[in-house]
């Protein structure tokens, strides 16, 4: 592990397989660490993560702005399609524009607003389970974890019949741009194709909703545009962001959470016996092995983080997984305890960019696990299966999860 640490290789096979051990070692050595290979700071402590994430005055999220400043004119033109959408994503914007967008969109995603979708989500979960429970085995991600969030986001944008496989393919292509291997030589072309296809798909949908408004999210965004609160670019970019951000993260959490419970069957049984534990359990699954491992900020001026001076313009990788296992914040942090309370984890980040979809994700994952413990026994990994994760610094994403189980009658 120490040699890997020295090499600062965040994509090393053993780091991807077991990020928690790597970040633990790093945290024990140097909570704010200069990673020479990535040319930026890596933060693995809870307090440092929270200090940075809650301080938008000193730390910028303007990823597109910083990227643009590093590129030549020619490079910039080659990725124009990506720029023209992603620069309007709220997640990459700073105040005051971020504040305006967030205050508007937040109303659609409050815990109260999300409750009205619960019956719809419950049905989607039941339907997905009906298809597989009697088989006694499934590829958990394809057969369940993927089905639920994808169906939900398509319902929310009012397009349940859209081609899911295409959306998945384009989302993955866009993801290549920032999440997956930086050494993929065609990453920019792949991402441009993904974004162009998604935009081509969503544009007529927006047009159609403008003519025939409904109660879906796109219609709500259009009415904000018509009221002069959003621009068309905001509407289009937000649709892409919701589709892109709305399914994969949730799918991965359902998968990671299931694996966590499979390796702690006593916690699965606790939940099965007492379904009222579900809310606390979901928080613990988010903390224990959340689906977003890290996020990035840029220092807007010289600023201290922990004991280190960060210079203006330098970037910081905030390890959410590292912070979530910091013993200074969480007792026995490597233990899975579905009754843990309080549990102020950073799985959805903190501060002004805290996940907009958090209440939706929580509700979906609550419904998913409530459905699972009601219908099947604690799953077991297929004997021949080997766990393998996608090589990403950001996503904690299993490639597949083949399991066996018994149907509960």
């Amino acid at each position: 592990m120490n040699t890997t640490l020295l090499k600062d290789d965040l994509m090393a096979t053993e780091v991807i397989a077991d990020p928690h051990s790597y970040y633990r070692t790093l945290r024990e050595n140097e909570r704010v660490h200069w990673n020479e290979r990535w040319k930026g700071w890596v933060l693995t402590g809870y307090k440092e993560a929270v200090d940075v994430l809650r301080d938008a005055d000193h730390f910028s999220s303007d990823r597109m702005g910083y990227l643009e400043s590093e590129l030549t004119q020619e490079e910039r033109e080659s990725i124009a399609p990506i720029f023209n959408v992603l620069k309007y994503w709220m997640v990459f914007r700073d105040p005051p524009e971020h504040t305006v967008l967030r205050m508007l969109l937040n109303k659609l995603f409050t815990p109260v607003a999300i409750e009205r979708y619960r019956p719809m989500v419950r049905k989607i979960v039941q339907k997905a389970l009906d298809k597989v429970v009697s088989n006694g085995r499934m590829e958990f991600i394809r057969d369940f974890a993927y089905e639920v969030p994808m169906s939900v986001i398509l319902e929310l944008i009012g397009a349940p019949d859209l081609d899911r496989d295409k959306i998945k393919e384009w989302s993955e292509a866009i993801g290549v741009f920032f999440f997956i291997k930086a050494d993929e030589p065609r990453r920019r072309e792949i991402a441009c194709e993904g974004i162009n296809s998604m935009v081509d798909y969503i544009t007529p949908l927006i047009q159609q909703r403008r003519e025939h408004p409904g109660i879906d999210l796109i219609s709500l965004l259009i009415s904000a545009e018509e009221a002069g609160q959003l621009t068309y670019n905001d509407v289009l970019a937000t649709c892409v962001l919701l589709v892109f951000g709305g399914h994969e993260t949730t799918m991965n959490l359902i998968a990671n959470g299931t694996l966590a419970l499979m390796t702690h069957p006593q916690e699965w049984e606790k939940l099965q016996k007492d379904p009222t534990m579900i809310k606390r359990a979901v928080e613990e699954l988010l903390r224990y092995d959340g689906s977003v491992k890290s996020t990035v900020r840029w220092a807007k001026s010289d600023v201290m983080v922990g004991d280190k001076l960060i210079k203006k313009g330098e970037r910081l990788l905030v390890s959410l997984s590292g912070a979530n296992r910091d013993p200074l914040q969480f007792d026995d942090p490597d233990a899975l305890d579905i009754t843990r309370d309080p549990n102020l984890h950073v799985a959805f980040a903190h501060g002004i960019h805290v996940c907009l979809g958090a209440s939706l994700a929580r509700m979906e994952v609550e419904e998913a696990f409530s459905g699972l413990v009601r219908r099947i026994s604690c799953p077991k990994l297929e004997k021949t299966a080997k766990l393998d994760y996608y090589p990403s610094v950001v996503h904690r994403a299993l490639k597949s999860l083949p399991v066996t189980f018994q149907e509960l009658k």
Partner: protein
Amino acid sequence: MAQVKITVNHNRCVGSQLCMHFLPAVFEMNESGQSMVIDANAADITSIIQTAEQCPQCAIKVEDTSSGEILFPPPGLGF
């Protein structure tokens, strides 16, 4: 003016600043980036409840001071 007691649960507040932006006369951020109530009487009850609803963490509790009734959050909401 409102006759309510507002409490922010610091085991839940993630410092989104949303409450402060919606009702700057009532909420402010403290030095660790979490919300605190500066004046519970600076807005009407409806706006206070609407603002508490915006909290992604259900960290804001609103009580009627005379009856003790919890005006927000409703039972079962939050986590």
